[in-house]
């Protein structure tokens, strides 16, 4: 860092933990450890007693009676005989006794042995802790005796120190360099807001373009031009978007994400625009191919209407491929969302769904059902091995 100021503090370990004190602590821990060790030995004795008792209890009923020496007083024994070798009075604890057979008594003793073992286990854990503590105390004592020092330094955040060092006016002129790193959340929010406002602007433009396109199409039956215009318009819009600096992948994703909810929240109108604008033909085809509507016989009179559709899609496709990859991503996302919406509409009510793509075919609402049928035929053909062939066929038929 090249800083000359001293940041840390140095204290000798022996001043904080005097060697004698540490040794005293270590001694105390040793003592408790010894105590626990005694307890452990006691427990082990209990366990040994218990196992030998179990053996005895299991062996006693083997014989009908045993000749034993009965203790009498402190120092005297007299010969006796043990009878009823299968009857035991087992002390359960708290001066309660139970009459049990040898087998039952052995079971009780075994249970007791188990509880003893669990006690041994817990004691072992405690002893291990104590041992660790003792070793820690020992090492501390030895370190303190050796004269070890402890160095403490306040932890400082890299960025905060940088900020502090940037206090001179020259570097304050360019706060944008440090801002994105330090105030990431805020800038993101800001960006989000900007994108949203831009989106609204776009929607308005689309609306205007939409009305314009509708007018145009009302006059013309083959609206390749108007559609193309719209396409160009949106493309220009997207280009502008790109020029504004939203070209990074992250932002595009953000854009497409934010776009979806917007569309859904604004109801069906923007959806219609979206559909009629660029993709509705292709969307419809795809969607119809998916839903698999029944194909009805094609009447020649309606052919001319459906003929416009393939042209549009043809127009549309190159523009999509021609646009920059990031741009494309946005478009696809939009397309996807609109398609989803479209399918929902179609499944909800056939009429609404068919109305949704009225952008360029408004004038044909009376023959919607048939239109649908046409498109489904094309779609079924499109979904075949050679998707673009039907286009030329339609064109031929039209001519």
């Amino acid at each position, binding site marked *: 860092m090249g800083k000359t100021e001293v940041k840390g503090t140095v204290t000798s370990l022996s001043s904080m933990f005097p060697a004698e004190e540490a040794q005293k602590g270590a001694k105390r821990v040793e003592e408790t450890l010894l105590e626990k060790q005694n307890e452990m030995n006691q427990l082990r004795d209990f366990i040994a007693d218990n196992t030998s008792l179990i053996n005895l209890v299991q062996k006693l009923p083997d014989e009908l009676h045993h000749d034993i020496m009965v203790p009498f007083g402190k120092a005297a024994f007299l010969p006796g005989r043990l009878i009823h070798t299968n009857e035991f*009075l087992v002390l*359960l*604890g*708290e*001066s309660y006794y*139970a009459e049990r057979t040898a087998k039952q008594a052995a079971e009780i003793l075994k249970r007791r042995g188990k509880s003893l073992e669990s006690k041994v286990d817990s004691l072992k854990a405690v002893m291990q802790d104590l041992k660790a503590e003792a070793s820690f105390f020992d090492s501390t004592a030895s370190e303190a005796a050796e004269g070890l020092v402890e160095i403490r330094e306040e932890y400082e955040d890299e960025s905060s120190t940088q900020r502090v060092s940037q206090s001179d006016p020259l570097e304050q002129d360019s706060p944008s360099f440090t801002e994105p790193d330090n105030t990431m959340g805020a800038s993101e929010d800001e960006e989000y807001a900007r994108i949203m406002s831009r989106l609204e602007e776009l929607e308005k433009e689309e609306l205007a373009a939409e009305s314009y396109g509708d007018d145009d199409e009302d006059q013309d039956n083959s609206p390749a031009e108007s559609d193309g215009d719209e396409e160009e318009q949106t493309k220009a819009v997207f280009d502008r978007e790109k020029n504004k600096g939203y070209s990074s992948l992250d932002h595009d994703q953000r854009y497409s994400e934010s776009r979806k909810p917007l569309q859904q929240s604004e109801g069906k109108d923007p959806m219609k625009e979206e559909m009629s604008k660029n993709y509705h033909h292709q969307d419809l085809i795809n969607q119809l191919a998916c839903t698999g509507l029944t194909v009805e016989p094609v009447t020649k009179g309606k052919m001319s209407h459906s003929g416009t559709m393939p042209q549009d899609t043809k127009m549309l496709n190159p523009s999509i491929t021609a646009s920059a990859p990031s741009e494309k991503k946005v478009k696809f996302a939009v397309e996807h969302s609109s398609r989803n919406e479209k399918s929902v509409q179609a499944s909800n009510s056939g009429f609404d769904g068919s109305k949704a793509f009225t952008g360029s075919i408004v004038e044909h609402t009376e023959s919607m059902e048939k239109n649908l049928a046409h498109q489904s035929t094309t779609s079924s053909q499109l979904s075949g091995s050679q998707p673009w062939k039907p286009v030329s066929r339609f064109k031929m038929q039209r001519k």
Partner: protein
Amino acid sequence: MSSSSTAVRELQRDLENKANDLSKLQKDIAKNHQVRKKYTIQLGENELVLKELDLLNEDANVYKLIGPVLVKQDLAEANANVRKRIEYISAELKRLDASLQDLEEKQYSKREAILKVQQRIQSHQAGKAKA
């Protein structure tokens, strides 16, 4: 001069009293610990008995040792007795816990007071040394 020395003497007496109180408190705490240990052991024993009693058959003979004689007891009665005893012991343990906390708080405050008195004595002595 004489007034300050009497003050110091008074403070020292105060300190002695407080130290006595503190040692008394510490003794109480140690006693509390011992009693608690006893009760926890009894609780464990009772729980063991209860477990065994639960495992016994209905018609098993249960005796209680009262003084030098074994008195036959009903199994259900013995069970109820043991349960009651466990309840009592748990309540007692809780009580002991509360009193232990109280005692420790008292000990802490006593210690603080003693420290204060010691500081005052030291300041007095320092003043004397200067004067």
